[in-house]
C-alpha cells in the first residue's frame, strides 16, 4: 500500500504530468516563452487540479462507479448493481468546465490581484489535458481515500508547475545561443523537453519516505497479522 506521501512525491517527480505522460503539452509549449506567464499558468493549473480532482473523486465514488449508488438505499439491490461509469468522460469534462468557470468568477470577485495574474489563463485551462488527465488517472488508479486523491492532484499540479517554469527559464536563456535556424523555437523546445524528461527519469529509482519506513514497519507487520487473523477466522 502506498502512503499518501509516496503518492504526492511520485506525482511531482517520477510520474510528472509533462515528462512522463505529456499531458497539457499544448499550453506548455504555447505559454512557456517567458517565466512570468509560465508562473501564472502553472499556478492556475495547481489551483484548478486541486479543486477538480477531489470533486471528481466524490462523483466517481458516490455516483458513477459500479455499486457506488448503493448509498441511496442499502437494502435495494438494484441501486448497488447500477454502473454508470460509461458516463464518466462527460461528467468529468462537465465538472472541469463548470468549475473553471466558477473559479474564474470567484477569483475575479474576491481576489482581483490574483485575477489579474491568472485571468487570461483560466479559460485556457478547461481544455488543458492535464486537468482531465488528472481526473482520469484518479479513476484508473482507484485511490482509496479522498486524501490520497487530493495529494495526487496537488503533486501533479506542482510537477506541472515545475516543468513549465523550468522550460520557460531555459527558453529565455536560449535566445542568446546559436541554435541552428530550422530548430529555433519549437524544435529545440521539443528536444529540451525530451532531455529534461530523461533527467526526471532518474527520480524513478528513489524509494520514497525512507525515514518513515522503520516507524511504519511495526504498524505494517501488525496490520499483516490482522489480515492473517481475519483470513484464518474465515
Amino acid at each position: 500500500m502506498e502512503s499518501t506521501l509516496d503518492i504526492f512525491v511520485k506525482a511531482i517527480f517520477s510520474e510528472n504530468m509533462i515528462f512522463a505522460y505529456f499531458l497539457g503539452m499544448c499550453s506548455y509549449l504555447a505559454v512557456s516563452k517567458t517565466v512570468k506567464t509560465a508562473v501564472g499558468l502553472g499556478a492556475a493549473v495547481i489551483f484548478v487540479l486541486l479543486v477538480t480532482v477531489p470533486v471528481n473523486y466524490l462523483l466517481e465514488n458516490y455516483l458513477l462507479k459500479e455499486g457506488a449508488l448503493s448509498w441511496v438505499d442499502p437494502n435495494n439491490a438494484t441501486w448497488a448493481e447500477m454502473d454508470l461509469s460509461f458516463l464518466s468522460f462527460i461528467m468529468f469534462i462537465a465538472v472541469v468546465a463548470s468549475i473553471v468557470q466558477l473559479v474564474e468568477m470567484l477569483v475575479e470577485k474576491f481576489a482581483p490581484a490574483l485575477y489579474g495574474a491568472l485571468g487570461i489563463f483560466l479559460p485556457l485551462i478547461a481544455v488543458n489535458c492535464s486537468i482531465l488527465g488528472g481526473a482520469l488517472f484518479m479513476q484508473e488508479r482507484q485511490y482509496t481515500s479522498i486524501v490520497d486523491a487530493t495529494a495526487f492532484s496537488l503533486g501533479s499540479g506542482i510537477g506541472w508547475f515545475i516543468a513549465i517554469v523550468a522550460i520557460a527559464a531555459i527558453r529565455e536563456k536560449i535566445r542568446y545561443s546559436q541554435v541552428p535556424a530550422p530548430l529555433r523555437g519549437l524544435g529545440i523546445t521539443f528536444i529540451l523537453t525530451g532531455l529534461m524528461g530523461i533527467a526526471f527519469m532518474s527520480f524513478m529509482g528513489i524509494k520514497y519516505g525512507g525515514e518513515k519506513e522503520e516507524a511504519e514497519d511495526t504498524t505494517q507487520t501488525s496490520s499483516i497479522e490482522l489480515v492473517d487473523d481475519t483470513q484464518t477466522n474465515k
Partner: protein
Amino acid sequence: MSEVAEKTKAPKEPLFSKKNRKLVTDPLTDNNPITIQVLGICSALAITVQVKQAVVMSLSVLFVMVLGNIAISLMRTLIPSRIRIIVQLVVVASLVIIVNELLGAFLPDVSEQLSVFVGLIITNCIIMGRFEAFAMANKPWPSFMDAVGNAMGYAWILVVVAVFRELLGSGTLWGIQIFGSNLPGEEWGLYKVGYMNNNMMILPPMALIIVGVIIWIQRIRNKELQEEH
C-alpha cells in the same frame, strides 16, 4: 433575389474543387497540426510505443473529428457563441464515449494499453481547434474535408514516430519481429551477432526528441516555417 443568386452559385463549386482538396492536403505538410500548429501533442506522444496503438489512436481521432466537425458545422447557426465551448465539449465527449465503448468491445487489449488516452481525445486541442476555427464558420462538406485532412496530418506523424520507436525499441513492427528473435538461448537474426534493442526508445522522452527531429527536417526543407527564436 439572394436565394436565386445562391442557387446559381452553389453548383459552381465541385465537391473536389482545388480549394477543397487544399483543405485535405495542407494539414499533411505545411500546416500540419502537430509540427506547425503544435496542437494535440498531449495524447500524440504517449501512445507511440507501438505502431498498433498509434494506428488505433489515429483512427479514433479520425472518427471523432469527422463526425464532430460535421455535427458542429450543421449546428453552427444554432449555437450561441457564449456557450459554444461547452457545446463543443459535449459533442466531443459523446463521440469519445462511443469510441471508448467500441474499443472496449472489439479491441480490449489495445483499449487497455491506451488507458486514459482515449478519454483524453476530448481535450485534444486539434479537435477543439478545428471546431472553433473551421466548423463554426463553414458548411458541412468543407468541414468534412478539413477534418479528414487534419486527422491524417495527425496520423502520419503518430505512425512515423511509432515506427521508429517500435523498430528500434523492441525490434518489431505491428508485433512482428523484424531483426530476429532475442529470446535468451535461442537468438537468431541480428541478435546473434550482438545487436541489442535500444530500450531508451521505449521511454517517453524519446518521443519528444523524434518529433523534434521531424520538425527540424521539415523546417530545413521549408525555410518559410523557420522561427526567429
